[in-house]
């Protein structure tokens, strides 16, 4: 099933025309209305008249995450604030978050791409969708909400957490489609097993999973434990939220809605455009966003793209699952975690540069973060309860900053191995391959 057949199955020439036309309009608009982009273009010595077709996009400078953060809250707005109808933001905390503002047309665009996404996963107006993504500033909850409304499905906005209630609702309302993070779906499966809920007897047919990286083996596990088909959805707050790319029934890549989100794959070191099929960093341009359009945004997600025709009939380019990140950002339970945030917290407790190590693991299908911190004279005490109190204090402060529970363990100096004086900061034991 295809939501927007005209666009989603358009041939390359037609797509190219749409992209070119939209890029030209976009560049003129941001040049006139957005100081940030106008300055950037001037620095790069590009004028709107230099952009004649989508191929000219490579003349434009990239936009980085740091620039997006510096633009918080309204710095990247390209319309008068009175046209903004909704605001969402990423989970950044010590560093400022990234905000995304939406006009009424932006919300309509979001609804459209989410309607396309859900339809690709086989969802119809007859289906009941259990939306277990968090509602709030996080884009997950509302993105699915708008898409489900658009196709006229029966949407249950249960939001995240309270797993027993999730199972109750699933049984009572006869949920057809589950939407949540992939790790949470497995957690639901574990709780179902404990409480004797048998998925093979439930109505549940498919799940739409995103907001964190996951692997094929995890897909197999989800599909067998929940007796459903598991689809991968890709998106990011900077671009719109969920609905940037979606898997079709063939489950071998995610179609990027390239009539509205133009993808490029670059060499993360040189910034050069790579030929189709190469693995590199995904760069996205929002061709039609009004409030906060983003031009050549470096997602830092490593993917490959494939322009081969898909059996589903869609012509839009397919990207692989995200295989890694160009920087050291960790995504834990859908929350973006930067080691620098943890360092900042530790600096409050120690006078000197903290020596620490982050260990990320997946235990009973939930991501967990452990922080090993080398003991210092300042933290040390001759009383056990005082040391444990320090650990609790650091844990609380980390929770305030990251919005994520982390277990803190104080270790002996030298515990964290250094090579060439550099400590190994991150050990990610989750397997995404």
């Amino acid at each position, binding site marked *: 099933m295809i939501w927007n057949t005209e666009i989603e199955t358009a041939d390359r020439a037609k797509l190219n025309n749409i992209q070119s036309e939209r890029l030209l309009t976009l560049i003129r608009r941001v040049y006139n209305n957005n100081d940030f982009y106008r300055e950037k273009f001037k620095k790069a010595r590009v004028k709107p008249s230099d952009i004649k077709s989508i191929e000219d996009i490579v003349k434009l400078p990239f936009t980085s995450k740091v620039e997006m953060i510096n633009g918080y809250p309204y710095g990247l707005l390209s319309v008068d604030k009175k046209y903004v109808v909704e605001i969402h933001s990423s989970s950044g905390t010590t560093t400022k978050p990234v905000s995304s503002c939406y006009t009424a047309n932006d919300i309509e665009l979001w609804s459209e791409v989410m309607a396309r996404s859900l339809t690709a996963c086989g969802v119809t107006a007859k289906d009941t969708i259990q939306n277990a993504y968090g509602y709030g500033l996080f884009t997950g909850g509302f993105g699915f909400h708008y898409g489900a409304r658009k196709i006229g499905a029966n949407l249950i906005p249960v939001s995240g957490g309270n797993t027993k209630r999730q199972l109750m609702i699933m049984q009572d309302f006869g949920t057809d489609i589950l939407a949540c993070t992939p790790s949470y779906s497995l957690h639901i499966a574990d709780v179902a097993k404990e409480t004797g809920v048998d998925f093979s007897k439930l109505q549940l047919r498919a799940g739409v999973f995103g907001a964190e990286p996951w692997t094929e083996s995890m897909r197999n596990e989800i599909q067998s434990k929940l007796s459903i088909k598991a689809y991968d959805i890709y998106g990011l707050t900077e671009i719109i939220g969920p609905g940037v790319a979606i898997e079709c029934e063939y489950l071998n890549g995610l179609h990027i809605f390239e009539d509205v989100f133009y993808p490029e794959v670059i060499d993360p070191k040189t910034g050069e455009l790579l030929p189709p099929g190469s693995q590199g960093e995904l760069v996205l341009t929002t061709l039609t966003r009004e409030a906060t359009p983003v031009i050549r945004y470096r997602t830092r997600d490593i993917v490959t793209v494939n322009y081969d025709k898909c059996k589903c009939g869609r012509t839009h380019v397919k990207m692989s699952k995200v295989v890694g990140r160009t920087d050291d950002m960790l995504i834990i339970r859908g929350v973006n975690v930067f080691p620098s945030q943890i360092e900042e917290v530790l600096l409050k407790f120690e006078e000197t540069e903290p020596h620490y190590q982050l260990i990320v693991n997946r235990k009973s299908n939930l991501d967990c973060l452990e922080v090993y911190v080398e*003991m210092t004279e300042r933290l*040390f005490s*001759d009383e*056990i309860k005082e*040391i444990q109190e320090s650990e609790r204090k650091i844990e609380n402060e980390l929770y305030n900053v990251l919005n994520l529970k982390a277990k803190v363990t*104080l*270790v*002996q*100096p030298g515990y964290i191995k250094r090579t060439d004086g550099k400590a190994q900061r991150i050990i990610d034991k989750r397997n995404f391959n």
Partner: protein
Amino acid sequence: MVIKQISVFIENKKGRLADVTNVLANENINIKALSLADTSDFGILRMIVDEIEKAIYSLKQAGFIVKETDVLAVEVEDKPGGLNSILQKFKEYNIDIAYMYAFVESLNSNALLVFKVSDIDKAIKVLNQE
């Protein structure tokens, strides 16, 4: 009497305690008393040693985290009721004990009790009352 105790942070791992005693042995430092408090993750080794400055310096040189604390040392006769008479007084005067340990000196056969208390001055006053 108030004496100086040193505490050392050690991981709860095989051989860690021996690493500490090795440093002290090499420096010819004598351990007069010790106690080890531990959790599943870490331990605190508390010691009374004969050459405290030298002990602290050499342990820090060896990469350990060391702390010096004032503790109360009380000498009692090595016979039944010795500890109890002290604890009863602490109880009566609301003095909290964070931890304690004991050792027996072979020369005069008296027991030496080491206390970390909430108020060391008050504790001394209370014990000197009789």
